[in-house]
């Protein structure tokens, strides 16, 4: 007897409404179908028809609330390549610091969500408490916790001032001290190990063929990181290396546990990058052209195309921009967020697992959606609603069952 279980399409906490349709035989998942067409905001259309290129930076920032530095970063990289806009040295360093701050807060946010999906809410509250430290720094430096409006063609809009530096250093010390504790909580806990080891395995071969990116692909042993492969901003100075789980565990399995390992390692790596960036922060301007109108007129006269790639917390983010002379908006603007590439990997990960594993496996790629609200179980043509709470309860029940 085969059951169909649709999950989704919408939840107030999800930034991207998405629907998953599972085919089940008993508790076992035998097929997964992803239905993304739930809500289309037409961001690219607005950037191609209505906005001027500077307005589009702020629009790009609103593609995703968590990656609100990554999308403008890609866009700016692409346009700077076409128009050949110079960027001051100090701005390149500030961009690196900003993107690493974002990685820390995003990975800690994810770690909390993962703990919650397993029913380990103490750990959720603990991780989110320590996340507040980086959020405070973001607020101090940018004046805002999210949508920081920091990117601009030719530099950044706000400097890291002398008085900010001791505060950032304090944050670095805070995280360095905590790393071993957090690593122990996540990696040595028996319950977490039971629920994540050998669950949601993505083999290296599948990871490559499905074009997965970021921690998802690195946990499967693909050493792919834009900061390492094609460095941009000031990244060449830091010799970034892609993090794979074998650094801690000595082997690469490609399961949910390995994806936790990779993200923990990356938080540590980000802290180190910020530290060395602060040590070597060059003096000088933060933007090469302060007058927005001048930048706009240069962009309007330019013609050409380029790709901007940035390693977002979830993986490679890529924007393609084509400019045409005399055309006010972008002639073409294609945005590809990391989740676009990663959701295809749900199928190999979830096959032959149980319904109770859906929340943690789905969350393990860190999609811009993490919990599920409504599930409609279609049984003999009759529908029964399962709420997000029901699903969450199933997940907790499985944890308890395993503990016995």
């Amino acid at each position: 007897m085969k059951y169909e279980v649709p999950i989704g399409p919408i939840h107030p906490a999800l930034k991207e409404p998405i629907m998953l349709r599972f085919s089940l035989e008993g508790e076992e998942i035998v097929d997964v179908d992803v239905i993304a067409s739930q809500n289309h905001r037409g961001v690219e259309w607005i950037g191609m028809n209505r906005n001027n290129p500077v307005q589009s930076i702020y629009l790009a920032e609103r593609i995703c609330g968590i990656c609100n530095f990554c999308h403008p970063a890609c866009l700016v990289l692409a346009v700077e390549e076409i128009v050949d806009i110079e960027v001051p040295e100090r701005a390149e360093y500030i961009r690196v610091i900003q993107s690493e701050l974002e990685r820390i807060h995003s990975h800690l946010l994810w770690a909390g969500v993962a703990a919650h999906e397993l029913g380990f809410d103490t750990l959720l509250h603990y991780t989110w408490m320590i996340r507040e430290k980086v959020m405070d720094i973001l607020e101090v430096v940018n004046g805002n916790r999210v949508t920081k409006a920091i990117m601009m063609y030719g530099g950044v809009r706000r400097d890291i001032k002398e008085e900010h530096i001791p505060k950032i250093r304090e944050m670095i010390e805070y995280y360095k001290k905590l790393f071993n504790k957090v690593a122990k909580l996540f990696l040595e806990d028996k319950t977490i190990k039971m629920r994540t080891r050998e669950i949601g395995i993505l083999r290296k071969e599948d990871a490559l063929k499905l074009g997965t990116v970021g921690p998802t692909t690195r946990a499967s042993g693909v050493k792919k990181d834009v900061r390492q492969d094609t460095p941009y901003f000031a990244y060449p100075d830091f010799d970034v290396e892609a993090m794979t789980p074998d650094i801690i565990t000595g082997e690469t399995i490609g399961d949910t546990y390995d994806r936790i390992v990779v993200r923990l390692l990356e938080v540590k790596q980000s802290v180190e990058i910020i530290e060395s960036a602060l040590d070597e922060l060059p003096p000088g301007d933060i933007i090469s052209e302060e007058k927005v109108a001048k930048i706009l007129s240069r962009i309007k006269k330019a013609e050409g195309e380029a790709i901007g790639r940035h390693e977002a917390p979830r993986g490679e983010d890529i924007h393609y921009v084509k400019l045409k002379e005399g055309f006010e908006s972008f002639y073409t603007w294609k945005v590809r967020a990391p989740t676009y590439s990663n959701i295809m990997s749900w199928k190999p990960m979830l096959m032959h697992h149980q319904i109770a594993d859906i929340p943690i496996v789905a969350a393990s790629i860190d999609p811009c959606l993490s919990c599920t609200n409504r599930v409609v179980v279609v049984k003999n043509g009759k529908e029964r609603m399962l709420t997000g709470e029901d699903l969450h309860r199933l997940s907790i029940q499985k944890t308890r069952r395993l503990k016995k």
Partner: protein
Amino acid sequence: MNTDELVEMLKEKGLEVKIQSKMAGVKKKVERKSLWVDVERDRLKEIVGLLVENAEEFPHFCVASTSDIGDKVEINYHFTINFGYQLEEIQITFRVTIPKNDLWVPTLTDIVPATIFSERELREMTGIEIEGLPDKRHLFLTKDFPDGVYPWRRDETAPKDLNKLYEGWKE
């Protein structure tokens, strides 16, 4: 396979390679390169297959982008290869230009499975027919999005007023 070898291999096949570059880094300067190759529609599969065969690891398919350029539509397939090694990665884009009165391209899903989302997107956003595409549902646009309206086009098929497209819209 490094950049020179790849360029040489493509030249042997009679293709022209345009290299675009931009410097990055402050203390350590590096050159970020991207390769752009024009490919005819009939040879697309052959050339992408060649990349799959010769790349050290399976090439990473990033995304396909498309532009409406008057009476033609161009499609860019963005790939990267040689990732995993510092500064050795190559970004390569294959561009196919097709006339609007004969708007189709062959699917690449049989050689590069990751292309399925992008091909479904090309189909709904620009109205390009993908020959052999196994899944022809909408990807991002909702089920009730009207037929014959393509958001990424710049001609009469482009949406005039997005809000008014949906059923039940009220002034």
